[in-house]
């Protein structure tokens, strides 16, 4: 490393820091190792000058702005999040507690801009879309498993809604 002149008051030494530009282009991973995207930008708060979040780019999704609250680690090797982004639940299979496939996730509704799920819209061919509340979801992994006792009444698109 080059020799630098240092002008600091109470900040950490140079060797205790790393170059944030090296993070750009690296992968952002979710808690479970899902590749969320490549880091396009690291955003700083205009007032506090602290890191507020990152922007990731992925071919399959719109660019994501992820807040620092959801970031576990930022290094020059990449970024690790502390959650599984719920927006990646799209196109996952939805199955009942009995194992019946009722469709795929068409869209998700979050609580504002948080990662918390409010509900999902389930789609199956020739059936009307079904909205399932997050409270009825037992597990959201590779597939979404609904809770026991959830009564699914999917209608064909030609049937009248209640």
């Amino acid at each position: 490393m080059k020799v630098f002149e240092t002008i600091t008051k109470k900040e950490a030494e140079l060797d205790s820091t790393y170059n944030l530009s090296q993070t750009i282009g690296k992968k952002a991973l979710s808690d479970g190792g899902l590749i969320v995207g490549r880091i396009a930008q690291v955003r700083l708060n205009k007032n506090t000058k602290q890191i507020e979040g990152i922007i990731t780019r992925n071919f399959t999704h719109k660019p994501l702005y992820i807040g620092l609250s959801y970031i576990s680690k930022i290094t020059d090797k990449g970024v690790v999040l502390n959650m599984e982004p719920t927006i990646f639940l799209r196109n996952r299979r939805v199955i009942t507690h009995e194992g019946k496939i009722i469709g795929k996730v068409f869209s998700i509704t979050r609580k504002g801009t948080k990662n918390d799920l409010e509900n999902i819209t389930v789609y199956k061919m020739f059936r009307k879309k079904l909205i399932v509340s997050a409270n009825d979801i037992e597990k959201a992994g590779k597939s979404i498993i609904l809770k026991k006792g959830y009564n699914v009444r999917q209608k064909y698109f030609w049937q009248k809604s209640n």
Partner: protein
Amino acid sequence: MSDKNIFGKNQIDALTSDDILGKEVIDTEGNFLGVVEKLFIDKINLNFNAIAVDKGLIKKGFVVGKGYIDRVTEHAVFLKTSIAFELKGLQVFDKDGEKVGKVKKVFTYGDKNMIKSVLVSMGINNDLEINSKYIAKIGENIRLNKCWREIKV
């Protein structure tokens, strides 16, 4: 179904081989692992022991002991756990998010579903065996709790 019964107990609620064979097998993460192909019954005590899961023409199937079966429902057989051998092919990242490689092989403790270590392919003729104690989380891929350079089995 025959009405004659010399068992002495009502078998209306019992499961039959028809209820299990051909059903999808799903793990705790919602992974569809395959289809129940066979039932294994101990030839001495005639107890149901395990099921064989068929993963299709190309992939190898596996056998799951009844202890790992959570429930048999109308549409599927649910397992209590994820299968260790399903880790093969997953990418491995270290604690800093650096890619280490892909899982080439999974070593378990005997025939149990407990991971002992994973063999990670880092390139041509370059494999690294990583003990399970360094695995932080298993999800879509595997994340370690240490930098790969510090890991030695």
